[in-house]
């Protein structure tokens, strides 16, 4: 329509991508163990639903926080009026401590450098507004979270130039890939303002290595550009070591209080670690005062509800709770991760070895009809519409090799995960396999029999390249 803005009529919001289409299909026909056992299982949603009971039991033990009370007095009125974009001090303090705890207290966060935003979605967009002008570019390693296309580009006019990572080395960020991306941006006449990484990675589920972080710091230092580290999954690391925040490396290299440190910015959120995406709690952490000041003002466009700030400040200030939660959450995530990985292995499907995240990066290249993205989408459609699993195709994450899929494991019950694995097994094995439970088989038989027999003829099994970890 001529009466709307270009932003309103373009597709940069990215929601026509397959990533979101799978969601739409799921919404039309959502799986329910009892009510809709033939529905689509949502394994495309990176949510952590494993540890609510821990929060609920905390609430039961802390009625004051639950009832908006402080020392027996209702503070609802004060909360109702509190709209200071600096945020509730107790909440920022608690958040700073929590972020530190998540990093084994190897680094500390200054609450004054924290900016509260409406989710990481808003944090990432706000950083773009602060660090780049329309037409500037940020370099992002592929594969990356599909939402970045909207969050970083849509209303800001910023471009994304990919840093191509490949399975040849486990999708690690190499120096040549960085340089190549920078050159590519220059060819496109785009001024590069920075690099944005997600650590731990979405969709890979891997933590960025110290080598990579050093490499990145050297790169941004040389090019005099920013480094944004989206650490939204920092609390989902389920190995005891492994997560290294870029702030730690800055400290190790004794670069704190230098120009470089002012160009390193962290994004965080409680949506993944605590499983509270509905509460819209995001954070920007920056050593640059101007960025903090500007971002704080911009946060007016998406402040965190005071009601939510209050609840979470009480929750996160309880150190017993946070310590126990982080530990227990890790155990449960690892458990669930291992189940998915072994379930897939049992049907000859491998995953990228990962130590974090709420998903696995699954290698289905051997199931592709041909080594093309068309074949990937064809496979994906079968998996969504016929196997009835919503998974995210690698192309929606800008992966440059077809055949990879992101499969989530933390947003469903263990039972549902079993059903999903059975469905996958049926899909891979074809109708010849008879070793499964009667009840599951009954449910899936009529659905998949005809379809599977068609697929068996078309599937070609390619040699898989050994993956370097």
């Amino acid at each position, binding site marked *: 329509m001529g*009466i709307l803005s270009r932003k309103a009529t373009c597709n940069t919001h990215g929601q026509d991508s397959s990533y979101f289409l799978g969601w739409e299909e799921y919404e039309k026909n959502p799986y329910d163990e009892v009510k809709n056992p033939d529905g689509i299982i949502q394994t495309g949603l990176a949510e952590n*639903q494993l540890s609510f009971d821990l929060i609920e039991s905390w609430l039961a033990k802390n009625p004051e926080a639950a009832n*908006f009370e402080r020392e027996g007095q209702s503070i609802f009125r004060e909360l109702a009026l509190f709209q200071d974009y600096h945020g509730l001090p107790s909440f920022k303090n608690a958040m700073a401590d929590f972020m530190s705890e998540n990093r084994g207290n190897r680094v500390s966060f200054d609450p004054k450098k924290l900016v509260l935003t409406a989710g990481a979605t*808003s944090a990432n967009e706000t950083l773009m507004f602060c660090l780049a002008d329309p037409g500037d570019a940020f370099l992002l390693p592929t594969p990356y979270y599909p939402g970045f296309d909207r969050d970083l580009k849509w209303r800001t006019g910023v471009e994304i130039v990919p840093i191509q990572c490949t399975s040849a080395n486990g999708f690690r960020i190499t120096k040549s890939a960085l340089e190549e991306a920078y050159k590519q941006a220059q060819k496109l006449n785009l001024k590069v303002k920075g690099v944005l990484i997600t650590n731990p990675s979405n969709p890979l589920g891997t933590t960025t290595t110290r080598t990579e972080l050093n490499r990145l710091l050297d790169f941004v230092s040389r090019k005099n550009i920013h480094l944004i580290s989206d650490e939204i999954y920092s609390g989902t690391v389920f190995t005891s070591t492994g997560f290294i925040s870029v702030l730690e490396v800055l400290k190790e290299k004794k670069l704190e209080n230098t120009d470089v440190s002012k160009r390193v910015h962290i994004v965080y959120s409680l949506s993944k670690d605590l499983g509270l995406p509905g509460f819209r709690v995001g954070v920007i952490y920056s050593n640059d005062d101007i960025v903090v000041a500007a971002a704080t003002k911009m946060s*007016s466009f998406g402040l965190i509800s005071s009601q939510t700030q209050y609840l979470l400040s009480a929750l996160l200030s309880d150190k017993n709770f946070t310590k126990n939660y982080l530990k227990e959450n890790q155990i449960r995530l690892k458990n669930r991760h291992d189940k998915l990985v072994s379930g897939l292995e049992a049907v000859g499907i491998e995953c990228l070895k990962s130590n974090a995240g709420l998903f696995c990066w699954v290698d289905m290249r051997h199931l592709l009809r041909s080594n093309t993205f068309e074949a990937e989408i064809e496979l994906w459609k079968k998996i969504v519409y016929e196997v009835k699993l919503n998974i995210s195709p690698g192309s929606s994450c800008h992966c440059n090799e077809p055949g990879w899929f992101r499969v989530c494991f933390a947003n469903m019950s263990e039972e549902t995960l079993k059903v999903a694995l059975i469905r996958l097994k049926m899909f891979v094995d074809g109708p010849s396999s008879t070793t499964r439970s009667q009840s599951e088989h009954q449910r899936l038989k009529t659905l998949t029999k005809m379809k599977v027999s068609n697929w068996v003829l078309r599937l070609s099994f390619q040699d898989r390249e050994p993956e370097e970890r």
Partner: protein
Amino acid sequence: MVALTAEKQDQNLLSRMAAGDGHGEKSAYFDGWKAYEENPFHPIDRPDGVIQMGLAENQLCGDLMRKWVLEHPEASICTAEGVNQFSDIAIFQDYHGLPEFRQAVAKFMEKTRNNKVKFDPDRIVMSGGATGAHETVAFCLANPGDGFLVPTPYYPGFDRDLRWRTGVNLVPVTCHSSNGFKITAEALDAAYENARVSNIPVKGLLITNPSNPLGTTLDRDCLKSLVKFTNDKGIHLIADEIYAATTFGESEFISVAEVIDEIPDCNTDLIHIVYSLSKDMGLPGLRVGIVYSYNDRVVQIARKMSSFGLVSSQTQHLIAKMLSDEDFVDEFIRKSKLRLAERHAELTTGLDGLGIGWLKAGAGLFIWMDLRNLLKTATFDSEMELWRVIVHKVKLNVSPGGSCHCHEPGWFRVCFANMDYQTMETALERIRVFTCQIEEESLILTKPMAKKKKCWQSSLRLSFKDTRRFEEGFFSPHSPVPPSPLVRAQI
């Protein structure tokens, strides 16, 4: 080659947006806030502190709200009664919003418009307060460099909300005190022409109804003519109705929603409403902003953009429960209006008694005070000088008209709904002392013998350029100061 200073280097590294002043906070307007923050009034701890009369908040019905919250533990997802919903709500981030939230908000919007219109819950789009709503609407309707017409005086926050990150321009539609700041066809045409001459494609007209800072409401004919004007030009009409339920006395609020049905062949694709619970319900902390558009495409896109400022699901849940309690809502609106009327009367009666004029209006959380006669010269410099005296000497933070882009110097927005009765009395007393001092100073200058006269008996030495009508004021029986036949604002 000249080396860049550290600051310059910094600015090159950051966006123009971050390094610039588009946020608007360097304006003198914020000095008053700073003065307040450094020395906030408290009746016991800081009786000489600055009284905050620059904050348009509705704090008069917090007790009703608190009582409801205490009596409805199920509205919280944290209490024993509500925790069974915790996990479902905590994971709910669908930008459509909770259906029960949208339904409850639609119903509330209907009630605050006296049930004269129906609102479709499917057109309700969330945003990060009205602040977020305005920015979203600007992103949807205008490209960088385009413009919106905005009648002056207007809420200073618009400069940031509509322009900062969007690159959109605001073109003032100048309104004058000579006709009570009403929007005239001439003013609209002049603004439209100004935009054309400045090469700013006009994309819409933004009105705030009831008005901030005036407190006036648009009558039916005026509203209709605004719809017709925008329809004829093929531009959007954005109606910020954030103060919808703050009418009191005989004032009637007519929403643009009511009027569009009365206009034949109205192109409703051009009609949009911005709303929020921050003023009507006094809940600014909960960040409940709404974009309501009659244009399907705008609803879709605004909804996608709402990802950048969704309402916390915990809050959606609470609001859904609260606003579904129709008895509570009806009672709340009724009591809120009564209390607003009372507090408004306290202030205006006090001002009447001191001979201070104000624009007659029946809505909002503030009055538009006329201090033109206290200016040394009819200039904005003089206005700022007077304002600094009011902030730093009288210790009242009020908003100078210049910050609201008022065309004429000498007007000030004074808020009254964010304080209790005693604080109001203290503020009035300070104004009384101030006007007395001015009187005495002016008498010393012009009539040295008269300086012993009691200030409330003397007439001001002011020179009146305009004739003013005597307003039939509301004389509160509680006013300690006898009314005097002095200046009233011309309506």
